């Protein structure tokens, strides 16, 4: 029995971790900027492409293979540093205070542009580079072999949850962000530079998405269409957890991860249905998500 449960659990957790990176960025951006960024999934896949390119470059130059771990991190930083400020300053900023329809459409426009941009740069073939996975090797628990890389993913996801919590509760920037989230006008009135907060929060969201994409490349590879798929998955997770809830996103990622792995195990043809079915089930009972509330929006 444990022969199936342990790998199942591990797969669920690892898949939940990857979804979490995408979803928590989306939900963070939503709670600070109050814009639901439809292009978020594209930034995830751009992170993946950047990481795959960097790892392939390292492999082709026969540099130290352990550099590929650095490459994963730095490609996410790189994507965040370029796309974060660029998108926020040029287009997202323009939509503040406008209706949801306008915000969704503008970010949908960004999504369309980014998707084609990726196709033009990286072509339509899929990228696969598993050096980091191979370097970490496998372990054996209870007679079951699994990838150490999956443990790393789970650990990193936990680190992000704790890190974000610390950032928001125990740093000056976190308090400024909380102030902006709670009352944007009042925050502006007492002299908080909201523009800077918005750029920082958006770039942090982009970084988390890109990191998720980068970390996903060594296990699952990257191919066109990943951006659109990730987008709806991140949507589902953010909605299950309650929009703008970091812990909610973590719990929802677990639910979706488990639902997916169980579906793959029990009814393989329904694996793609599982996350949305879970979302529907939760939202019908709790319309604003597990951790969400109608009035107060905390982060």
């Amino acid at each position, binding site marked *: 029995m444990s022969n199936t449960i342990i790998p199942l659990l591990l797969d669920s957790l690892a898949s939940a971790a990857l979804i979490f990176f995408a979803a928590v960025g989306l939900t963070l951006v939503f709670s600070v900027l109050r814009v*639901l960024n*439809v292009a978020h999934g594209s930034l995830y896949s751009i992170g993946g492409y950047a990481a795959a390119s960097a790892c392939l470059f390292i492999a082709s130059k026969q540099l130290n293979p352990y550099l590929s771990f650095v490459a994963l991190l730095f490609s996410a930083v790189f994507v965040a540093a370029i796309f974060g400020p660029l998108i926020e300053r040029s*287009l997202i900023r*323009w939509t503040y205070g*406008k*209706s*949801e*329809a*306008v915000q*969704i*459409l*503008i970010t*949908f*426009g*960004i*999504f*369309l*542009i980014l*998707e*084609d*941009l990726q*196709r*033009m740069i990286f072509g339509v073939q899929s990228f696969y580079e598993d050096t980091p996975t191979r370097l970490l090797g496998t372990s054996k628990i209870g007679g079951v072999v699994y990838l150490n890389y999956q443990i790393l993913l789970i650990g990193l996801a936990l680190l992000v949850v704790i890190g974000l919590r610390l950032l928001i509760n125990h740093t000056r920037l976190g308090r400024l962000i909380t102030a902006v989230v709670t009352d944007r006008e009042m925050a502006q009135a007492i002299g908080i530079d909201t523009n800077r907060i918005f750029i920082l929060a958006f770039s942090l969201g982009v970084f988390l998405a890109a990191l998720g994409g980068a970390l996903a490349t060594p296990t699952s590879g990257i191919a066109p269409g990943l951006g*659109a798929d990730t*987008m*709806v998955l991140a*949507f*589902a997770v953010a*909605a299950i957890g309650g*929009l703008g809830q970091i812990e909610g996103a973590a719990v929802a990622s677990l639910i979706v991860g488990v639902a997916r792995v169980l579906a793959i195990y029990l009814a393989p*043809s*329904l*694996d*793609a*249905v599982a996350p*949305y*079915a879970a*979302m*529907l089930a939760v*939202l*019908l009972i709790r*319309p*604003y998500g597990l951790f969400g509330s109608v009035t107060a929006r905390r982060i």
Partner: protein
Amino acid sequence: MRTIPAAAAVLVLAALPLFAPWLQFVLTLAVAKGFAALGVAVLLRAGLISIGHAMFFAASAYGVAFLARAGINDFGVLLILSVLSAALVGAIAGSFLVRYRAIFFAMLNLAVSMVFYALCAKLYGVTGGTDGMPVPIPAIFGVVVAEPVFKNILFYLSLGLMVLVGLAVQRYLNSPLGQALSAVHTNEIRLEYLGIPVWAVLLIAYIISAALAGLGGAIAGFAIGRVVPDFAFWTASGHLVLVAVLGGIGGVPGAFLGALFLELLHSAAVTVTDAWNMIVGAALIVVIMFMPQGFYGLFSRKEASRL
């Protein structure tokens, strides 16, 4: 709406394929998507943005395919039944979806449509999976016609329906029931105080919009000859919202104007570049930033509604 320019526009549309036969398919698809976008625009009136209407578009096209497989071969029957099936799906989904507003309405529509998409793609035995299902050429009043003839009939019938259904929707939007939609957008609570059941107003709008999307889907299914799960993918829904906004959500002509623009842009763009989505995305951003009333706002003296 000014009658003479509108009638002239329809006549130009009807005449175009006589000079450029290849346009007929593009125009048929444009009208089909125009119906679906009109459905989205009806809900946009109430400030509700649905990123899931491609589901009804696809449901109706699948409806045609299933009915044809079951042995029904009459064009009129197929069209009516498939639109009814889309309306039925709309009534079921709408009955709980219209409780939600704003971003939650958008996301739940997305979720429902993605369940539908995933089922269509995965249930290989029933729907043919990603290969899709064929939509055969039906008989018209018992007369079996050749494919080119059928496509001709389909095109002119779509144009006719565009006028008839367009007028009907216009009447609906101008009726108290339709006006209530704008009132939901402005101040929903006030509407409840007046004793108007918002839930019912929105449900009726939702069913109408699903039926409109269904009509478009059936026409598209006939025109293409095949229905695939991608009909229901969320990006297709995004395109429908895009068309609705592109045209301008103020009036009925806007949706068709937007669809026509997008389809023509598509066929022009694919001949020179693969980056078709990029062009659409850029066009979308430009229109939203600089023409908040859409194309319809350019032509209409009356103020088109803004988002």
